[in-house]
């Protein structure tokens, strides 16, 4: 017999509902002005989504995030792989990365805005930076861990070094790269919002912080809910993608469960 907890999506759904009920009760009981009951926030969600202007805001956020995210992948994966396979490349990039790593990317926003203005380019650049670092790091680790004998086996088949990087190192490191991409995705969402907090002009962050200024707390929390759901949906989609391209790396029993 199937247990209720085994139904896919059921446990997280219960957790969400539980959280909302808890939030609603606490807000009603404590009656803090900055914390509207969950129900009031939920009611605002369709209002936002039905407003064409707000919808445009959200879409422009997503557009910037997608551009920044993919630009980062195109840059970060090759750099990480090359760093993992060449000491010279690693020695070149390492100090640079070590310097940028601890800096919150959103903190760079004011400086970047000085150079590039408050428009899309600055925001995309911040997202790009935020996503690049974890992807570089994990690509690097993945490439470093590629078994030497695997590369030798390919070399013995007559494969040259550049082809090995593309056709052996890249697929072998893919599971690890995907871990970096997942972290990158979360960071893309975070930097997306924070960049819009600093350069308010359009976007989800713009809605969020404008309504905060106007003390429209229902709207504030509704926006937070929307961002949360976006993150959740992206993560689910990403997990599907990961399974498709790197499913071979899963432990055997998980493959068996998946195909059952």
């Amino acid at each position, binding site marked *: 017999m199937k247990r209720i907890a085994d139904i896919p999506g059921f446990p997280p759904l219960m957790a969400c509902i539980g959280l909302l009920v808890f939030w609603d009760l606490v807000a009603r009981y404590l009656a803090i002005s900055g914390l509207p009951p969950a129900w009031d926030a939920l009611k605002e969600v369709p209002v936002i989504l039905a407003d064409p202007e707000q919808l445009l805001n959200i879409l422009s956020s997503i557009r910037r995030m997608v551009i920044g995210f993919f630009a980062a992948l195109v840059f970060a994966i090759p750099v990480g792989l090359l760093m993992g396979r060449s000491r010279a490349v690693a020695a070149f990039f390492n100090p640079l990365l070590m310097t940028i790593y601890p800096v919150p990317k959103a903190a760079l926003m004011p400086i970047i805005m000085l150079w590039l203005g408050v428009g899309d380019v600055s925001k995309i650049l911040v997202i790009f930076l935020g996503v690049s670092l974890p992807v570089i790091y994990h690509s690097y680790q993945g490439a470093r861990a590629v078994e030497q004998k695997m590369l*030798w086996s390919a070399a013995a088949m*007559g494969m040259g070094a550049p082809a090995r990087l593309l056709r052996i190192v890249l697929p072998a490191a893919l599971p690890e790269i995907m871990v970096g991409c997942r972290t990158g995705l979360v960071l893309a969402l975070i930097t997306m919002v924070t960049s819009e907090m600093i350069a308010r002009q359009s976007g989800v962050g713009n809605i969020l912080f404008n309504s905060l200024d106007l003390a429209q707390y229902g709207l504030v929390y509704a926006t937070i809910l929307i961002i949360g759901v976006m993150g959740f949906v992206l993560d689910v989609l990403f997990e599907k993608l990961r399974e498709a391209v790197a499913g071979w790396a899963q432990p055997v029993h998980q493959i068996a469960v998946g195909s059952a």
Partner: protein
Amino acid sequence: MADSNPVIDIESLSKTFGTRRGTSHLAIADISLKVGDGEFVSILGPSGCGKSTLLYIVGGFEAPSTGAVLVDGKPVAGPGPDRGPVFQEFALFPWKTVLGNVMYGLLEQGVDRGQATDRARELLAMVHLSAYGNFYPKELSGGMKQRVAIARTLAYRPKILLMDEPFGALDAHTRTRLQNDLLDIWERDRKTVMFVTHSVEEAVFLSDRVAVMTRSPGRIKEIIPIDLPRPRKRAELLVNRRYQDYVVEIERLMELPPEEAQAS
């Protein structure tokens, strides 16, 4: 046989590794060995004496410090499809299926997909894995993985097989089966084989000659021709007096002398 036109000609080969402490470490010293066409030569020696290093240099994966390796009279400058490696760690491509792994070298060499598939299936049959073409390496046992690795290497028809403890990670039973399979395959097309192992019985059972190396830095201590009839059957050999004598003789060679391993 080994002296006239050797396929592999190892000429006073030495390899020195740099260590982290900035010193240098002599791994193998002045090794000379000729391997004839279709000959099966095993390398035995204590752990760390440089057996793998020797094999990697012949494979072109590592460069020698001094000396040279000639294959068919030409100096080895790097890896090539004339020398197929089989490693103890299998080194299969985990993102490819079993069939994909076995086909890989053929596709790499420009063989068309249909032909490569046929040949790969043929080889999988040879290593008794016909039913596993669509499996991924993760889903196989160690013995099955090594069969795939052997099939993958045989697929592109290297003239020479370089096997580094290929059965070292397997249990005794699987090991015996794979030894028999390897001998069957070898009887069929008589490739030239360099085979590194820790097992004296394995070396005697498989080889035409057994090269015993000294402790680090590895030199060749003695080369023993194994004059036992082929095709060899394990059950018959085990009660064969000459086989037993070979095993004892080589065991003795391996024990002596009990000098300390030298570290630098």
